[in-house]
């Protein structure tokens, strides 16, 4: 397969400049670079992604991500199933944060229905579920990042908390991973009695465990040494590549869709100053390195707890589904709604011609944009760093390929 990665052994020059800026002089002995396939099957690629790397020993000199191994034609399916029937498919692109996907799609379709009023209790439950799922997704990001770096235990502790979160979702909608719960017009069914109290208990217990995560992994000297000053994304590069989410905030750019383009209840929360946006500060190294991104994710979990608590204080009994006809025909038009996924901005662009079936459902997956930056970041890093960098992008291939 033809690649555009340069093969230094065939050049006639005396020296070359590495991406890090150093000048490397060739000796009489010309060794060819090793072309390594960081293949589709690998424990550290967070899915089936193939990265073709050219490495000079441990130093990577070129990288090219190859995607498409998990492509399931989700967007094409959107053109042949009805509006409500598409909901389970939205679960399956970013399967770690399925509630957020449901929310994004539902909000995009609701934007095309001008008269629809979503009941307040439905909004509250939607926000609670989305934020709990954000915690769950960040737990996996944190746990699997530890696993990539070599710390095996934080993964299990993260999953212990995630089990509780999944049990909560199991009680409310019956599924543990692909919920299809947040639907057009509200949510499918109301929370069972006792659910909200259990969420409150979860928040309390989670705070103590969260401190352990920080002590065990984030502040661990070896972890810091592995991730600080590695994979630095400067502010301009982040903006140029269109990165969003913790990738962007880790580089010091103060932008969060929940605060800057508020949707759902986040506008109200802004007035109450319910949560802060975590922006990287470059504490342990350069601003925009892997440690900053991990720090952003771990501390965002606490902000999500604050949001959940805010909702729990204000939730009141009421209907959970708006006035939706049984046979759903969406008025003609097009709408784009972007929400803050744990990975960045998840955008749904929906086009309707007035019928039961959509004309186009286009999904802007944050992981797809975030993966693009790998081609810039990987050259100049060591193989072990490559794994740290890929882990810090928190890529979910289901979302990249759809």
């Amino acid at each position, binding site marked *: 397969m033809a690649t555009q990665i340069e093969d230094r052994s065939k050049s006639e020059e005396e020296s070359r400049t590495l991406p890090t800026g150093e000048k490397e002089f060739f000796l009489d002995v010309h060794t060819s670079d090793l072309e390594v396939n960081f293949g589709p099957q690998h424990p550290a690629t967070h899915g089936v992604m193939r990265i073709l790397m050219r490495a000079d020993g441990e130093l990577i000199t070129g990288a090219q991500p190859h995607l498409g191994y998990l492509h399931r034609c989700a967007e094409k399916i959107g053109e042949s*199933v*009805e509006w*409500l*029937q*598409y*909901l*389970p*498919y939205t679960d399956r692109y970013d399967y770690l944060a399925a509630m957020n996907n449901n929310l994004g799609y539902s909000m995009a379709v609701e934007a095309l229905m001008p008269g629809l009023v979503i009941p307040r209790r439905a909004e509250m439950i939607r926000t609670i579920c989305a934020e709990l799922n954000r915690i769950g997704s960040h737990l996996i990001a944190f746990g699997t990042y530890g696993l990539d770096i070599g710390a095996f*235990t934080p993964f299990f*502790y993260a999953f*212990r908390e995630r089990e509780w979160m999944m049990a909560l979702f*199991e*009680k*409310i*909608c*019956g*599924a543990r991973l*692909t919920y*299809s719960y947040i639907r057009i017009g509200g949510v*499918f*069914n109301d929370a*069972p009695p006792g659910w909200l109290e259990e969420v409150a208990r979860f928040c309390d217990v989670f705070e103590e465990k969260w401190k*352990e995560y920080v*002590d*065990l992994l984030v*502040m*661990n*000297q*070896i972890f810091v040494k592995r991730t600080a000053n590695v994979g630095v994304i400067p502010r301009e590069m982040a903006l140029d590549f269109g990165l969003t989410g913790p990738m962007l905030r880790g580089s010091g750019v103060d932008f969060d869709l929940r605060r800057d383009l508020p949707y759902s209840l986040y506008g109200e929360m802004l007035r109450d100053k319910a949560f802060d946006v975590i922006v990287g500060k470059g504490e342990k190294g350069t601003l925009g390195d892997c440690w900053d991104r991990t720090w952003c994710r771990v501390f965002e979990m606490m902000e999500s707890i604050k949001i959940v608590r805010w909702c729990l204080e204000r939730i009141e009994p009421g209907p959970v589904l708006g006035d939706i006809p*049984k046979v759903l025909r969406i008025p003609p038009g097009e709408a784009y709604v972007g929400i803050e996924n744990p990975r960045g901005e998840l955008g749904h662009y929906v086009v309707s011609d007035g019928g039961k079936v959509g004309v186009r459902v286009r999904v802007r997956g944050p992981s797809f944009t975030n993966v693009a930056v790998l081609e810039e970041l990987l050259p100049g890093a060591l193989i072990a760093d490559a794994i740290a960098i890929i882990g810090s992008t928190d890529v979910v291939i289901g979302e990249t390929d759809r």
Partner: protein
Amino acid sequence: MNATKTYFKNVWDSLSTTLVGMKITGKYLLQKPITVQYPDERLPIPERYRGIHYLEQEKCIDCLACARACPIDCIEMDAVRHGKELEWISFTLDYQKCMFCELCVYPCPKDCIHMGTEFAFVTYDRSELKHDLLSFKGMAKEARIRMKEAEAKKKEKEAAKAAAGAASGAPAADPKTPDAEGSA
């Protein structure tokens, strides 16, 4: 001097963070594990769990609302109508395709299809995965009785009409006749 300070700070940091980490893992080493040892021990399954479907057959009216709602078209049902009663032939759900999204449960007008708490559904043959949800084939006894009663009532009404028509002697076509023929 700064280099020496960083040097010893590094050493100190490594030692202290290692000890903090060891304290946390040591704490969990001495605690009881949280594993539930399946299949000897089981976690309680919530009532809303999306497991294998079960059908309340007597309530079902063969309206196909659930089959239409399914995104993957995995529900197929076949029944013969006898007036208002149904003679069931089959109601299959193809579990090779089903993604357990529960979209079939909500549109049911009679609230008769549900998702239960059974999740272990293993077969040795693919054909067995087209699971038939019926609890009995054909007609229920009560349904058959009702059908016979309805037929009997209809015969009575027709006999009465024929008698009334013959008595009044009206040769005009009965406006109800085409309908009666159509709905038989």
